[in-house]
């Protein structure tokens, strides 16, 4: 275990205000839909209203006659190249070619002089279909003779994974106790409040695209691939982004259409979704059917675990291939056991595609395993926390899949959460209708491999000091979707340079102006962009110190301090810089200001620029699929929830919750706790209330709005006590940091579900655990 060196940081570890505070609290922050350009047109997608059909004809003639309509495009007007995450599963086109695969699928796009005309035009477009039988569940999709949704996925089987480590069958044979449980997750949705929006315009051969997205680079890459453009010819940038949670990573039909329509019309085009369309765009959590078999010894130590996951994927693959791997690849990080078999299947269905949502494929499997673990513990008489302590991974170990885990404080997290919650006094002792439960989780701190095969570094940072030294401009394509990456990156930049935080400005998420970063996904931003920017800051610092040596010598000031540096020439490493003051370490009264040194640098050498670079190197094992789950650093977390259940009505109230997140050094505690609160919020919503529903016959979305898709209000949200481990330090993270954003949502469903079990004595195995399901379960029990 590496020892954390306690440092006296100026900005790292401080609860500084967000850098966008003023804009966001005064209404000045601009989001993509707030942009307006002269002569701008408005556009929307044409969507199918059947679930599975051959397109026989698209008649746009009436719509074209409508005054104010400027252009209408369908598949015949755009490149037919497919896209997706993994080349083997590139299966999505800009617009459907011949066939629609879900109710709401993309058929084309219309733009007109104003919104009202666009809506009128959409009503005039007639699409003639030859309807095909459709399937809306994986069970139907997997049946013999089921309608084929894609030629390339026989039997509608889109992805299949078989991982085998050790000898599970032998382990189960020798176990003291073996148990099998079947659990079911549901389809959920990110439910960010800002709808997707894209605005594009052209200047000669170059296009500019504003996209409310999580990765400007990923959008730029795929648009250029499909549209046959050089990457240098397409500038993708973002304004403020109204959250993403995984749902704004894939390029949308809006991105493609905005660029194409603005080319055709020669005018700026704003493409937008309404609220329901963001649900149809989909990419939320897969419903997963899970079967778990585990054998333990009499103390609860896991000897072998066999796990089968079936994911219902919706119509396209997108990030779903990674979701399928993530459904099983991180279990062996959390708990240390020798024999593991993971079999996963992802089926395509005629519903909007599923993809990545906070925690990616992991939260439902976490729910399943954590509940399964409680049931095992109960059967053999071992307390749930003890079950977790005995199986928790330790620091500086290697997982079965070959992932190196450096810092890992899951045991400490369990102990701290146990003590803070009063677990020993409460567990099993709260009486009928009250319960307390625990769940564990964690996540990668950035994926070890990029989103597509490339030799590019994961992040590049640049800092430019303004000519007279009075401002530092920090550049990165990192995308602040609300998680606070701009603020924490500025904190690290200021710390590394020794320059005042207040004088740092961020230029983020712009492919022209800022430097490469793969964006906000896999909880990567703080570590990966953090490394690149920290190193850029250190580069600045080195140049400032070298310049200061020259200046100290020239002023003769240093002569007085000669003795302190041992009768030799002054060297950069005799100096340090902190909060804008350069000083001689042995004689801190000898100072220069950063500003005067930087100005002198500019005068004698030109622009002062710092550069940083980050690549995690080769990570992970060699088996097929080993890439998904690799990371330079893994967080871990324990959550405990206490609930009250009305034994008459089934109504659940979560009364108290505790979270301990093993996050390494925390750059900004105030923002860190905000991530934990929000993660818990999403998790409890998914545990009790949230589910995307479709008509069983037509596949039509039923609750694409926030009245019927029930994300919790302020009245539903319990208090959350977010705690941290003081001596958590990650050697692979800049300043010793690890992730929090996604990992903190992975223990929640397990913790809440286990608390409900403790309260009512009935095992609830199907998400969401609604009041009605609890009521029915209690009725059946009687």
């Amino acid at each position, binding site marked *: 275990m590496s020892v954390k060196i306690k440092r006296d940081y100026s900005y790292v570890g401080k*609860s500084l*205000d*967000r850098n*966008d*505070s*003023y*804009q*966001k*609290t*005064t*209404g*000045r*922050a*601009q*989001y993509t*839909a*707030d942009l*307006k350009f002269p002569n701008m047109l408005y556009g929307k997608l044409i969507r199918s209203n059947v679930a599975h059909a051959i397109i026989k004809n698209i008649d746009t003639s009436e719509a074209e006659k409508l005054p104010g309509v400027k252009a209408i495009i369908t598949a015949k007007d755009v490149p037919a190249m497919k896209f997706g995450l993994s080349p083997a599963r590139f299966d999505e086109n800009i617009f459907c070619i011949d066939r629609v695969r879900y109710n709401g699928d993309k058929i084309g796009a219309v733009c007109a002089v104003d919104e009202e005309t666009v809506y009128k035009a959409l009503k005039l477009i007639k699409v003639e279909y030859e309807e095909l039988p459709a399937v809306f569940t994986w069970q139907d999709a997997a049946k013999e003779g089921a309608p084929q949704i894609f030629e390339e996925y026989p039997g509608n089987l889109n992805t299949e994974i078989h991982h085998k480590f050790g000898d599970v069958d032998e382990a189960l044979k020798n176990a003291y106790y073996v148990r099998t449980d079947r659990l079911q997750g549901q389809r959920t949705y*990110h*439910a*960010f*409040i*800002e*709808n997707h929006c894209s605005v594009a315009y052209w200047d000669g051969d170059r296009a500019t695209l504003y996209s409310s997205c999580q990765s400007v680079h990923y959008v730029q890459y795929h648009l250029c691939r499909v549209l046959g453009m050089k990457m240098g010819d397409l500038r993708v940038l973002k304004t*403020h*982004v*109204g*959250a993403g*949670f995984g749902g704004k990573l894939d390029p949308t039909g809006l991105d493609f259409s905005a660029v194409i329509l603005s080319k055709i019309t020669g005018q700026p085009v704003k493409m937008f979704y*309404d*609220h329901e369309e963001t649900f149809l765009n989909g990419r939320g959590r897969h419903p997963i059917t899970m079967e778990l078999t585990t054998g333990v010894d009499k103390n609860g130590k896991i000897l072998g675990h066999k796990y089968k996951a079936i994911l219902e994927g919706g119509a396209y693959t997108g990030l779903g291939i990674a979701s399928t791997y993530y459904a099983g690849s991180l279990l062996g990080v959390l708990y240390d056991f020798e024999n593991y078999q993971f079999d996963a299947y992802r089926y395509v269905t005629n519903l909007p595609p599923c993809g990545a949502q906070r925690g990616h494929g992991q939260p439902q499997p976490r729910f399943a395993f954590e509940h399964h673990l409680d049931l095992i513990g109960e059967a053999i008489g071992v307390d749930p926390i003890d079950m977790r302590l005995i199986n928790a991974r330790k620091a500086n170990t290697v997982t079965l899949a070959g992932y190196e885990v450096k810092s890992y404080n899951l045991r400490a997290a369990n102990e701290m959460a146990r003590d803070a919650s009063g677990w020993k006094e409460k567990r099993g002792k709260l009486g009928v209708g009250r319960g307390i439960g625990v769940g564990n989780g964690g996540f990668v701190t950035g994926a070890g491999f990029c989103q597509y095969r490339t030799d590019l570094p994961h992040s590049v940072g640049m800092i430019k000091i303004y000519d007279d030294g009075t401002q530092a401009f920090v550049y990165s394509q990192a995308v602040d*979707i*609300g*998680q*606070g990456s701009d603020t924490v990156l500025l904190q690290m930049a200021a710390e590394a340079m020794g320059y005042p935080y207040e004088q740092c400005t961020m230029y983020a998420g712009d492919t022209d102006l800022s430097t490469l970063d793969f964006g906000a996904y896999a909880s990567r931003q703080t570590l990966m962009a953090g490394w690149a920017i920290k190193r850029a800051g250190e580069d600045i610092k080195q140049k400032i110190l070298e310049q200061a040596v020259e200046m100290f010598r020239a002023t003769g000031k240093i002569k007085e301090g000669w003795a302190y540096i041992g009768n030799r020439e002054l060297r950069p490493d005799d100096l340090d810089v902190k909060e804008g003051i350069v000083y001689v370490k042995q004689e801190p009264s000898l100072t220069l200001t950063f500003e005067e040194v930087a100005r002198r640098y500019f005068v004698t050498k030109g622009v002062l620029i710092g550069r940083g670079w980050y690549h995690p190197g080769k990570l992970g094992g060699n088996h097929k699929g080993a890439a998904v789950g690799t990371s330079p650093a893994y967080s871990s977390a324990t959550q405990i929830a206490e609930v009250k259940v009305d034994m008459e009505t089934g109504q659940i109230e979560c009364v108290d919750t505790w979270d301990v997140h093993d996050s390494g050094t925390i750059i900004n505690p*105030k*923002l860190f*706790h*905000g991530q934990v*609160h*929000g993660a*818990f*919020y*999403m998790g409890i919503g998914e545990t009790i209330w949230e589910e995307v529903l479709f008509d069983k016959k037509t596949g039509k979305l039923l609750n694409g*709005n*926030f*009245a019927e898709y029930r*994300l919790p*209000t*302020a*009245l539903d*949200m319990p*208090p*959350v006590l977010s705690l941290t481990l003081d001596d958590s330090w990650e050697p692979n993270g800049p300043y010793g940091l690890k992730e929090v954003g996604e990992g903190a949502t992975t223990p929640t469903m397990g913790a809440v579900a286990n608390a409900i079990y403790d309260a009512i004595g009935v095992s609830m195995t199907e998400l969401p655990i609604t009041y009605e399901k609890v009521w029915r379960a209690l009725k059946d029990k009687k």
Partner: protein
Amino acid sequence: MANCIVDKDGVKRYLVTVNVNGSDFTKVVKANTLLVNFLREELDMIGTKKGCELGDCGCCTVMLDGKAVNACLVLALDVDGREVTTIEGIADGEDLDIVQEKFIEHAAFQCGFCTSGMIVSSRALLNENPSPSEYEVREAIAGNLCRCTGYVNIVEAVLDAAEKK
């Protein structure tokens, strides 16, 4: 009733004068123009956000004659001669309102998309009830959805703002 003119297609348009953040604005609107679109499109006051347009999310909340309302559920025609306060009118020039200050101090926003509406709802509550209980704060913002914060810091910020004034 507002002055009405009829265009060449027979669509009626109305002249309305609305006081927004202390200034009168006179514009021609259609009968179906929503207050949220009036603010954003006619006045370029983009601080009021457009989310669900169904009255579910609350991110377009403004004060109408001092009461918090969803601007997507109010017609521009219906606010003729009335007073609207948007997020742009919460601060006094460069001096932030105590609610805004406390939102910053408590990190009561992340992506910021719900924040305008959340601050307006909170301000409307404190105008009517200067020392609300925690439950009353939660009730007042129950119509403002936030997917990022879990409301934890928002509730703290509003309670803190209430104590300070």
